């Protein structure tokens, strides 16, 4: 490989054998004249003969670093601003040790090694499964899948396979993105019906639910807290309604809330899924997502997981334990059985990170975290409702960290408000105007343990000014 500038033959640092000296030797050992001969099974007409239009390489690391950092510097991250964005990706505190562990070369670069030489990875993932299991109080948790949305979609398909039914009821207050994922994953094999919410409380409309359940229903899926913020307090009634028809309850949760809010198993949920990102994983521009699925330890559930399940086992040495894949061997096929989905690389490193996070937090950390988040978000709601024209929260229900702020009483659109907030170095809540048109000019605000009183006061102050100003700047 010729380095044009220096006109010296040298290898690229990532490709040791790009040195022409070594190549000659290796070709000789193989018994061919040139590299081209190694491609003789590719027909000539398929070979690309053009020039790849890629930028000139930055072979020196210093140049590369400068270049990439230059592009990244065009970002303004949430540390520079105060952000109230949530909606499936949230800004929580990431303990230093979480980064320390998931940046370890062994964990970062391992892949599909066996239970003996990659033992640490297996144990770390078993521990993550076990720690999440304590949050949700269920005995089976999977190796993570891509995101909450995928976990929800798979949970729903699992419920369909278990009940051998093809219809699913889904709350209309779940995240629109997750609904889109579920639709693409389930249709055309599974039919989806949406269940309305009570416009006052934001919780599920139980009458509407009851009118839609039938012998065809496989399951209901709702999120708790819902995407719009309210905590569903009628879980037991929903479970009752569905269990009477032998249908299943699937609930999606934010695990950060489970230090103070009861896990869905307490109101008889059958399958629980959720997002691991709040548990010690940076937002990463939406790249820090990982979904988990939890169920009771019964064969009918375990055999339906498409993901890997790591189990503990003995080794051939007494007293030593190791880990391996729990292998549920299917021995008999049931008629009308539906496909088992697929499994592949997903988000294991984030699973390990979540395990580290929960180990650090412990029971009282999670409890305190839940409490402090609720206190802060209630403080924020109080301040915002004091602004004329603003109603916070929109729904009359208990909330956790996210709540809808209703701006219909002001003369501004959410878009105008958010644009003005930028000049105060604030990212306002997610604009819901298009996503949930019935709410009018509303936004989804998220408050976490990282929002100090000072930053919440700043938000209230800025909003007050903007709304009183009345005109877009």
């Amino acid at each position, binding site marked *: 490989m010729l380095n044009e500038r220096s006109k010296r033959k040298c290898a690229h640092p990532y490709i040791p054998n790009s040195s022409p000296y070594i190549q000659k030797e290796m070709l000789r050992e193989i018994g061919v004249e040139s590299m081209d001969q190694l491609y003789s099974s590719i027909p000539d007409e398929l070979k690309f003969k053009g020039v790849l239009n890629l930028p000139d390489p930055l072979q020196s690391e210093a140049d590369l670093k400068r270049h990439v950092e230059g592009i990244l510097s065009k970002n303004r991250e949430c540390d520079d601003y105060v952000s109230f964005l949530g909606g499936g990706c949230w800004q929580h505190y990431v303990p230093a040790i979480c980064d320390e562990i998931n940046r370890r070369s062994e964990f970062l670069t391992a892949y*599909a*090694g*066996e*239970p003996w030489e990659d033992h640490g990875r297996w144990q770390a993932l078993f521990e993550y499964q076990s720690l999440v299991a304590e949050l949700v109080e269920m005995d089976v948790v999977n190796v993570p899948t891509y995101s909450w949305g995928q976990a929800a979609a798979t949970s729903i398909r699992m419920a369909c396979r278990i009940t051998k039914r093809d219809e699913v009821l889904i709350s209309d207050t779940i995240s629109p993105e997750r609904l889109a994922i579920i639709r693409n994953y389930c249709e055309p094999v599974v039919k989806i019906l949406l269940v309305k919410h009570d416009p006052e409380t934001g919780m599920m409309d139980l009458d509407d639910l009851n009118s839609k359940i039938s012998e065809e229903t496989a399951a209901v899926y709702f999120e708790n807290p819902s995407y719009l913020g309210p905590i569903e307090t009628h879980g037991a009634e929903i479970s009752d309604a569905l269990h009477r028809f032998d249908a299943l309850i699937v609930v999606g949760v934010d695990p950060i809330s489970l230090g103070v809010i009861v896990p869905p198993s307490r109101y008889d949920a059958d399958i629980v899924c959720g997002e691991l990102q709040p548990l010690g994983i940076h937002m990463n521009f939406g790249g820090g997502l990982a979904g988990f699925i939890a169920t009771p330890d019964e064969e009918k559930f375990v*055999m339906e997981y*498409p993901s890997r399940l790591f189990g503990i086992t003995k080794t051939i040495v007494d007293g030593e334990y190791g880990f*391996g*894949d729990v*292998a*549920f*061997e*299917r*021995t*008999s*096929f049931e*008629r009308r*059985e539906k*496909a*088992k*989905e*697929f*499994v*592949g690389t997903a988000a294991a490193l984030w699973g390990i990170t979540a395990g580290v996070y929960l180990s650090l937090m412990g029971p009282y950390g999670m409890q305190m975290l839940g409490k402090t988040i609720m206190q802060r978000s209630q403080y924020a709601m109080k301040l915002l409702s004091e602004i004329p024209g603003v109603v916070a929260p929109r729904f009359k229900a208990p909330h956790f960290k996210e709540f809808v702020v209703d701006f219909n009483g002001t003369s501004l659109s959410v878009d105008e408000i958010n644009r003005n907030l930028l000049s105060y170095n604030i990212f306002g809540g997610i604009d819901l105007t298009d996503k949930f048109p019935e709410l009018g000019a509303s936004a989804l605000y998220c408050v976490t343990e990282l929002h100090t009183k000072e930053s919440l006061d700043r938000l209230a102050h800025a909003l007050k000014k903007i709304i009183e100003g009345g005109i877009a700047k």
Partner: protein
Amino acid sequence: MKKLGLIINPIAGMGGRVGLKGTDGEETLKMALKLGAKPWAEDRAKEALKQLLLLKDRVELITYPKKMGENASLSCSFTPKVIGELKGEKTTAEDTKRAADEMRVLGVDLLLFVGGDGTARDIYDAIDRSLVVLGIPAGVKVFSAVFAVNPVVAGELARLFLMGEIREVVDAEVLDIDEELFRRGKLSTRLYGYLKIPVKRGYTSGSKSTTPMSERYNKEEIAAEILDEMSDEYYYIIGPGTTTKVIMEFLNLDYSLLGVDIIHKKKLVGKDLNEKEILETIRGRKAKIIVTPIGGQGYLFGRGNQQISPKVIREVGKDNIIIVSTRNKLRSLSRRTLLVDTGSEILDKELSGYYRVVTGYRERAIFKVSNRVED
């Protein structure tokens, strides 16, 4: 403590060494001995037992007297439990059958036997699929699927099975060879029965695929798929084999495992029919044939379903032939094609080509069928 049974057919393989094709029958045996043949089945047993020495103290070795296993076991430093008795100096098929039956009563966890197809047939006659067995090949005629490729592999497989490291057990074909044809250099087999053998699928952990499925599961999938697509208009000729007969099981019908049955409107119309009976049943009617490959070479026609004769096949039509096969069967064939040997070379040629083989629920494999290759 696990129980391991061992039965040796002492004269297996003697014929081959001196150019004879097998040792069935007194005359052939006499001839072999005259030609100087020495029994080597015992050596094969010892090769296998060597692999099991690691388990000497954790497994109870049960065997028959003298040449039928006791000698080999002792010379490999095992302390076997010797059961039964021999009627005379020469051993016969009856001895093999009696030994197998006695071991069945004792409930051995694995029965190792040394011999050829004939020995396998004797074992099958005695115990059918009531025990897990494994054949150590020592014969000229070793075509049944119940044999490991050699004694060393057999011993290793036995060890893993007894240690619990492999657990899957499948039905393996026991074949019957046409003796006359065989001595004339031609191979013509017939499906005789099935024995249960352990298999090593080779599942390491770190698997990137979803949960493993047993052979039985695969067969059930196939049956479900066939039943989903079955039409009341047709008469279905169901060929022999464990894969095809699951269809009959699902319909709760009586059937013949090794013979040809016909069903119509999901009811049994005829069981274990011969060519004439089949033709009578389907004459003037719409019919389909459901067959599965038999034997390690994957014969669709000609190795155990000769009742489905060229006349029958022509009456039904090539397009109405449905091939079913488990995935493992297709993958383990010694060739990359299935074979046909109907008896009519012209028909064989017409039947060759590519077929959609039913391999699971809503799953097909495109597989080639060719006319017979000289064995």
